[in-house]
């Protein structure tokens, strides 16, 4: 620590000179907003882009939900536009066709995971908040950080543009299982799947650059006195997340290149011998393994689940400590648990593959590790629940979202159990039960955590508050609608309704169990209502930049961590002088203290 501290004061000194220099030369528009190397601007760029993709991903599933509820009926409002833009093969007469359904399904998953949630959780919050919370003037590698955003942006452009290339976007699920990913548009060298793979390589590069930057920053740039066990839990969560990205993504990048070779140059990394497609032998040599792709994909895919959830847990922890006015209960066990979750997340991946022909021994290994990983996750969640006890809880929009995260993520986590045991997974596998499970984890789970973060840090980033009334409409509407959307999916799963069915399961359930199909209609209406309840948020997000109530001091929530010790909004370089840390991150309501919060940088 001593060594880093010396080098850091040096960095701060150089930085002060840099600041002085700035007084004379205001940054131009391009270098301030587009080619910024400032972690806060990059965080905001990530945030705004990711929110756009979140909305776009929601639009895609909105169209799909219409088709599920009313198979074969033209999509209202946008059906005609889809036909014009994407062609008759995709949306004849405004009716979603099978290929379009599969394309939207694949891209909904891809966009939500890789272009919306991860960039928002890791790229936006990680970038904006982490350096502030550890008292650093910026990320360790500001230009790498800029490159990370640009890779992400171009990855997003490639994914978005792929809807408009001949044949349309990738249509083989967000998991892109071979051989379907190769055979779906065989012979068309540049197809949606090719674009998907190129886009993924760009996004993976973006994440890798971000990951090395976060790890270096958190290890090297902690300010004086910021020992490991004084780091806010949010920083721990980002730290573990960075390792997950760093270690899990490269295998998928390699796999992506191999699948690209299969698609474009007709190699057979993932194609076995003797494939017959459309009645003819596929002209490839064969000898590859489709299951190899699944292993490489899920080796990323499962840690990715924790990439989605850990930053949200970090945000929720910050907001809960602040709004209960007391320290997080069990901070140390939480830190050890998050590290344990990180390690274990690398050895559970094949529980996505129980039904690929797995014997007892291998599946026993993977279900045992799966049950093991549930324990530290439960410890974190329990610690957050217990943290409420004895608090003096404030219910603003940020804390409402953070509080709702707890039971909602609880449902998401618990419904993972019957999928984690292989024997009970046999029936539930690939059913709507699975869809309900991971959407509870990601939507009212992670997204609620991220929204809590937006309401919480918006005043620091902009100098104005988001409107609380609109915020509460947004919250209650989202909470009710999310549950109306996802809870019926567990029932559909019990009924045996399979996912990714273009007709919403009508082929199987129309005669035997029409109520299963009725649920599709209810879910779709709830999803539309959920969309309506996002309008106050969208308005609030932009209008508050101009008309929001102004913050009157730099620490409007009476918080303890260093992110609130900066000017508002934080200038280039963040702190007016290097902060020194004297205590742990959540010293709220310390007995004998004058106020109910003791900031980390306040000398005792």
């Amino acid at each position, binding site marked *: 620590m001593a060594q880093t501290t010396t080098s850091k004061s040096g960095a701060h000194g150089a930085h002060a000179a840099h600041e002085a220099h700035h007084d004379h030369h205001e940054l131009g528009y391009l270098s301030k907003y587009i080619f910024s190397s400032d972690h806060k601007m990059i965080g905001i760029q990530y945030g705004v882009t990711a929110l756009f993709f979140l909305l776009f991903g929601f639009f895609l599933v909105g169209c799909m939900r219409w088709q599920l509820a009313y198979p074969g009926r033209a999509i209202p409002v946008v059906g005609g536009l889809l036909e014009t833009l994407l062609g008759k093969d995709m949306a004849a007469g405004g009716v979603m066709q099978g290929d379009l359904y*599969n394309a939207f399904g694949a891209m909904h998953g891809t966009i939500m995971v890789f272009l919306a949630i991860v960039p928002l959780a890791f790229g936006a919050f990680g970038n904006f908040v982490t350096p502030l919370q550890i008292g650093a003037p910026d990320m360790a590698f500001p230009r790498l950080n800029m490159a990370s955003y640009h890779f992400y942006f171009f990855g997003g452009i490639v994914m978005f543009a792929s809807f408009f290339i001949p044949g349309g976007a990738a249509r083989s699920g967000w998991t892109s299982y071979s051989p379907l990913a190769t055979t779906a548009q065989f012979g068309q060298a540049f197809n949606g799947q090719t674009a998907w793979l190129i886009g993924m390589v760009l996004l993976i590069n973006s994440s890798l650059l971000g990951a090395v930057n976060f790890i270096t920053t958190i290890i090297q740039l902690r300010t004086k006195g910021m020992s490991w066990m004084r780091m806010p839990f949010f920083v721990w969560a980002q730290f573990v997340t960075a390792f997950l990205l760093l270690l899990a993504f490269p295998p998928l990048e390699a796999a992506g290149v191999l699948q690209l070779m299969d698609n474009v140059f007709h190699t057979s990394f993932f194609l076995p011998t003797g494939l017959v497609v459309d009645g003819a032998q596929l002209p490839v040599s*064969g000898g590859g393994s489709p299951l190899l792709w699944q292993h490489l994909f899920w080796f990323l895919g499962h840690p990715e689940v924790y990439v989605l959830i850990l930053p949200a847990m970090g945000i929720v922890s910050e907001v809960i400590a602040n709004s*209960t006015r*007391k320290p997080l209960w069990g901070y140390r066990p939480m830190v050890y648990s998050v590290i344990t979750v990180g390690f274990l997340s690398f050895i559970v991946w094949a529980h996505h593959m129980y039904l690929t022909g797995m014997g007892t021994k291998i599946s026993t290994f993977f279900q045992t590790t799966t049950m093991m990983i549930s*324990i530290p996750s*439960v410890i974190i969640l329990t610690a957050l629940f217990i943290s*409420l006890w004895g608090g003096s809880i404030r219910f603003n929009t940020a804390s409402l979202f953070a509080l709702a995260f707890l039971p909602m993520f609880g449902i998401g986590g618990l419904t993972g159990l019957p999928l984690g*045991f292989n024997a009970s997974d046999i029936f539930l596998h690939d059913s709507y039960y699975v869809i309900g499970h991971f959407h509870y984890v990601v939507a009212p789970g992670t997204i609620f955590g991220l929204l809590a973060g937006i309401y919480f840090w918006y005043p620091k980033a902009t100098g104005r508050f988001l409107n609380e009334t609109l915020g509460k409409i947004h919250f209650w509407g989202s909470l009710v609608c999310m549950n109306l959307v996802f809870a019926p999916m567990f029932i559909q799963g019990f009924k045996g309704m*399979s996912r990714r069915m*273009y007709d919403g399961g009508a082929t199987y359930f129309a005669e035997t169990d029409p109520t299963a199909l009725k649920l599709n209609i209810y879910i779709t209406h709830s999803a539309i209502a959920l969309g309506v309840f996002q309008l106050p948020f969208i308005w609030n997000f932009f209008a508050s930049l101009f008309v929001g109530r102004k913050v009157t001091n730099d620490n409007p929530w009476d918080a303890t961590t260093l992110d609130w010790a900066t000017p508002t909004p934080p200038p280039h370089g963040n702190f007016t002088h290097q902060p020194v840390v004297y205590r742990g991150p959540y010293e709220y309501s310390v007995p004998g203290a004058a106020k109910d919060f003791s900031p980390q940088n306040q000398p005792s």
Partner: protein
Amino acid sequence: MTKLLQLFGMPDVASAHGAGLDDLIGYVHLLMLLLFVGWFAYFLVAITKFRKSANAKADYLGVKGHMNSYLELGLAIVEAVLLIGFAIPLWARAVDRLPTAAENPVEIQVMAMQFSWNAHFAGPDGKWGLQDTRFASSGNPFGVDPKNAEGKDDVATVSNEEFLLPINRPVIAKLSSMDVIHCFKLLEMRVTQDCVPGLSIPVHFTPTKLGKYSIMCAQLCGNGHSKMRGYYRVVAKDEFDKWYAEKSKAGAGTSFE
């Protein structure tokens, strides 16, 4: 337990091993319910009792004691019991332990293709015709050599045509696929298994209820995925034998040519 789950829409179970799987699903859900009700009740009490207006000053220490550690330990033990007592042995029985010849299983090959199910029985001679991928085509999904004598009596149902299975006799289905990954899902039999091209993966089950059932494809396989529905009927031994003999005669001169 199946009865309880049926209240939530679960289809009837029609295989020998199915009830055991349902029991596990039921027990896991009871555990989940217990945890969730506990958490949620606690949560409601906590946010009511410790709201700012009811509790102006927060308590720095909060909960003291180790109640939660005991609860977490308890959860770990219950999970271990479900794992070791149920999941592992159930899987070993349902998946690994194939019926022996003494149990006189019906053996079939199932070939999935975009977007249909095809089944293949060895015929009265009990021997499969010679198969090779170079003979494979849409009309001959199993790639049976048309000149091979042992294949002449084979029974095949193609393009989602219904096939029959005898009740109370173990079935071994060897699953494969011609093109992409499909998933062979028999809801009532509590059977789910991917069909992976290039591999032949056996599943087994013993139907215990007469009836007409569907084969569902549970793995995205292309734009016709949702329509890929196959049919089979579980019938009495006599009916099966009659069908088998007739199909074999019908197949003798015509199929695979």
